[in-house]
């Protein structure tokens, strides 16, 4: 489900884009349009900050000897990914739809003509999203993937996999005519639990399986060995930076500077804190003492889980969704360890598992009527029946098959 806000914004965008400087036509609409641009740009910069967060989390959770390597990978995946998305990815994602599956025009971002057009800001924001999706994988494959393979992989994700995934749900954001098939069905993924996180997470899972565990992670007798992260201060710094970035990621997905952004920020925060608290408690129960690295994972899990429904749930809904996310992530980490899938930073449990959970949660907790966003809530628990839930499950299944399949 794409928020009503979007359509209004774009309508305004198209109306006002003809005038090079908004000031020329000093209408309130033009100023609002400029405000949307400022907000979206700021949000995009916050999302870019997430690259820093990912780099810090990953290096903090792994061994000191691989720090330079991980830094290199995180800087380079953004660099090559940005170029790939600029050249072809953006066209696949937002170009004219072929059967709602893939975009077919607008390569090299050629569509931009006007120096002060809204499109530039929109594409800047989208580039940052694309990079986030690509970089998720690097945590799961840390400490063992070859640098050159990783570069090629980053290019493919940014040029092809993410844009096509994005087309299906979000193809209509830029131009409503170019919407993808899932978007047309009413699939709800406001800020990307599925499009960004679970796609990245499925690829991460596939990568972790294909590469196999790090040497020394599992002993001959099958027992897991812990390979402690070398710097939990840096890892915490990274998580806090990611948290900040999420205040661009979720509220920024309105791409407009309206009152909703405050609500979405509040909801996002509720998800994060609930995830943190529940993960800490769960870890305490299972492992007997609070564990910082698990708590940090819980925080990210809560954030990922509320990403899809952040525009359509109540704060209490966010507390529940985020809290469940915090429990899920711990179970996920422990289970993966048991079945010998080695994911040094917990990327699969955070992004894949909770991306899926967040997407499903839309079908359960969507409360549009409570928030006066529309007349009827679509969430099962708010009297919306099973319709939305069905669409969400379809979406989850399709993306799982697509991204996990491609990952191999």
């Amino acid at each position, binding site marked *: 489900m794409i928020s009503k806000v979007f359509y209004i914004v774009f309508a305004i965008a198209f109306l006002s884009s003809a005038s090079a400087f908004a000031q020329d036509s000093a209408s309130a609409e033009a100023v609002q349009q400029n405000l949307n641009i400022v907000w979206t740009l700021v949000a995009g910069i916050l999302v870019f900050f997430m690259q820093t967060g990912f780099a810090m989390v990953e290096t903090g959770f792994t061994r000191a000897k691989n720090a330079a390597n991980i830094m290199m990978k995180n800087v380079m995946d953004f660099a090559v990914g940005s170029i790939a998305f600029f050249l072809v990815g953006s066209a696949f994602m937002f170009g004219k739809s072929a059967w709602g599956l893939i975009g077919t025009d607008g390569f090299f971002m050629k569509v931009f003509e006007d120096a002060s057009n809204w499109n530039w800001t929109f594409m800047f924001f989208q580039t940052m999203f694309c990079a986030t999706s690509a970089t998720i994988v690097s945590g799961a494959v840390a400490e063992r993937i070859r640098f050159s393979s990783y570069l090629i992989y980053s290019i493919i994700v940014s040029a092809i996999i993410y844009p096509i995934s994005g087309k299906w749900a979000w193809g209509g954001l830029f131009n409503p005519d170019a919407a993808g098939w899932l978007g047309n069905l009413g699939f709800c993924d406001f800020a990307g639990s599925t499009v960004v996180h679970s796609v990245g997470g499925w690829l991460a899972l596939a990568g972790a399986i294909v590469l196999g565990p790090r040497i020394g992670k599992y002993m001959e007798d099958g027992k897991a*060995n*812990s390979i402690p992260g070398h710097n939990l201060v840096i890892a915490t710094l990274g998580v806090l930076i990611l948290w900040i970035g999420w205040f661009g990621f979720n509220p920024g997905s309105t791409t407009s500077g309206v009152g909703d952004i405050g609500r979405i920020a509040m909801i996002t925060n509720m998800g994060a804190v609930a995830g943190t608290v529940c993960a800490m408690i769960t870890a305490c129960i*299972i*492992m007997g*003492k609070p*564990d910082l690295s698990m708590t940090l994972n819980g925080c990210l899990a809560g954030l990922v889980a509320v990403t899809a429904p952040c525009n359509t749930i109540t704060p209490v809904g966010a507390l529940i969704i985020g809290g469940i996310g915090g429990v899920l992530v711990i179970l996920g*980490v*422990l289970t993966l*360890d048991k079945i010998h899938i080695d994911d040094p930073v917990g990327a699969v449990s955070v992004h894949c598992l909770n991306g899926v959970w967040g997407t499903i949660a839309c079908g359960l907790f969507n409360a549009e009527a409570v928030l006066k966003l529309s007349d009827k809530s679509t969430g099962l628990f708010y009297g919306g029946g099973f319709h939305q839930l069905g669409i969400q499950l379809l979406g989850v299944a399709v993306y799982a098959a697509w991204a996990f399949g491609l990952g191999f």
Partner: protein
Amino acid sequence: MKLIIAYIKPERLNAVKQALFKREIFKLSVTTALGCGQQKGYVEQYRGVLKEVNLNKKMRLAIGVNDHFVEQTIEAICEGARTGHIGDGKIFVLPMEECVRIRTGERGPEAIG
């Protein structure tokens, strides 16, 4: 001359130094070490996986002394390092054939102090 080598608990280092100073033994060298003895290791947990750490942190002292100082040195180390618990450590006494003070080139017993 002897070289006295002792492995002690890190937190006892200060007490041992004090005990040595009381007996006017002022020169020693210290290295960090890991030890494995009667004291069992401990179990750490990271992300739900247990890890057995069976090397405990120790300090290694090396003290070059003249023969008539050996007993006092041993005494001092025991005084400072003993807690009565497993893991208190060991003292080894090795024969030393020669000692040289690098600054002056002096040799033998005078060089040691």
